[in-house]
């Protein structure tokens, strides 16, 4: 089993997203069970349905759709997605796809002092992005252009990506204005 598969299995990713690693299906007998990844040293959450009630967020992200929850009782749009509405405290929520584009409200970059696992990413740009057409401002990485070539108001695209071990997350990619 490959390292990424091993991490994938340890993190409980669902069946749909696994199984395409290109390795033989038959496993050697007597293999030790996979070691658990040290979750407390890793920013990326456990995404499977045995770990979180928001696993559909990650399933949809794997399909290329950034989504969130909306309250069926009062229409409150949440970010991040939730299991209970903070406004009316109801638990009847529905999933909703979010726009795939937005504009930079503010940005900076990490030029030093990066956390574990991100040292080799330095320098990396981050920003707060106003999504088009919804009252949501999301934080995330901005790829595609060095920080010094970004400007407030620049358009960006939402970009789901594979973390590298079967898990997924989202970031933003700077577009030509």
């Amino acid at each position: 089993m490959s390292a990424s598969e091993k991490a994938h299995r340890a993190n409980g990713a669902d069946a749909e997203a696994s199984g395409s690693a290109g390795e033989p299906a038959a496993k050697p007998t007597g293999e030790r069970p996979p070691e658990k990844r040290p979750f407390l040293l890793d920013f990326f959450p456990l995404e499977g349905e045995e770990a979180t009630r928001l696993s559909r967020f990650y399933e949809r992200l794997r399909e290329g759709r950034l989504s969130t929850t909306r309250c069926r009782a009062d229409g409150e749009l949440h970010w991040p997605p939730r299991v209970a509405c903070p406004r009316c405290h109801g638990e009847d929520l529905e999933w909703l796809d979010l726009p795939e584009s937005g504009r930079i409200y503010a940005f900076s970059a990490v030029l030093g002092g990066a956390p574990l696992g991100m040292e080799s990413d330095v320098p990396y740009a981050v920003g707060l992005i106003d999504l088009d057409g919804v009252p949501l401002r999301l934080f995330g990485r901005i790829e595609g252009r060095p920080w010094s070539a970004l400007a407030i108001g620049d358009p960006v695209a939402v970009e789901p990506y594979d973390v590298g071990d079967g898990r997924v997350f989202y970031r933003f990619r700077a577009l030509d204005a």
Partner: protein
Amino acid sequence: MSARAVALVGGVTTPFGVRPTTWAEMAQEIGAALFRAVPALRTEDVDSLFVGAAEPERFAFQSHVAPLVAEQMGLRPRRILQRTELACASGQSAIRSAYAAIAAGLSDVAVAVGVEKMNLPSMAEANTSMVCVMDRPWDGPGGATAPPFFAMVAQRHMREYGTTEEQLAAVSEKNHRFANANPHAQFHAKSFRREKLRGLPLVAPPLRLGDCSSMTDGAAAVVLVAEDRARAYTDTPAWIRGTGQYSDFHNLAHAGELSRWPGLTAAAGEAFRSAGVGPPDIDFAELHDCFSISEIVEYEAIGFCAPGEGGRFVEDGRSDLGGDVVVNPRGGLLGCGHPLGATGIAQAVEVHDQFARRVPAARQVPNPEWALVHNLSGSANVHSVMIYQGGRAA
């Protein structure tokens, strides 16, 4: 039941910096220093202990720190023993909790202590711990350390109000100058002129190294007592007259317009209301300058100047000795370093020492009567404010 008045009757800090010592050793060190600093204090007087510690689990691999600290300090609390955790404001939370307990009659003599050990062999590990202050599964994957958040605050403040990098450097220059007169400051005896600050490397643009407080090891402790006990310990108590706290978000998505901090306006407003004073009454303030831009936004949110005028306020010397209000005469987080849980306690030590005329002349505020202390925590998620009045013991 009417609340009792509460006095802060003494306190002390360890040296702040990169310390070749452990978390628990610093708890012993601050215990020894506290009993030297408050000679009338006896072990058996202390009925309660509040321990401000932000991340001992991560920085020292240690939980259940309240009894650990009691043992290290040689205390046996018989009424209330607890840890208070509010990230960068854990220390002020310890003081507020002690204040509430004494005011309610549940404690007569309490110690509030803050301990933090942040410098680890791997600074990447320490940086990882700092990200855990954020909404980790949502903001963590983007690499949300503190500097880029406050850098975005600076970027928006510059865009909306014309605040300049020169004005940011003026905050840092002032606070480092005060730190030079504070032997316990991390950056004691180091010169930081504005031109030098402007030439330091960028950490998170537009913020440079000199705009950012440091990862610091240190501890601080204060003694709080009921009004009728104050005279037994000091002739120069600092009376807690007002307090306020406000939180309106945690996830970075809800940080609002960045350049204004309405949560601080609310917290300071409640503190002013409960103390019966206003911004013009404050002689000096210990503000949470985790970054240079923070102090500028704080002048405006507290009401020392109008929104958008914070940059000019510092540039014109109005937050310096001889100005409207002396801000961060201790040297601030920029000059002293920022050992999370110890910071709020160290600010209160400065309030007591200023009222007692016990600080070096280069940072002594002339005839101070009213002081304001502010801590923010995380990405300015929570604002905590206390107002003290100097005066004779009852």
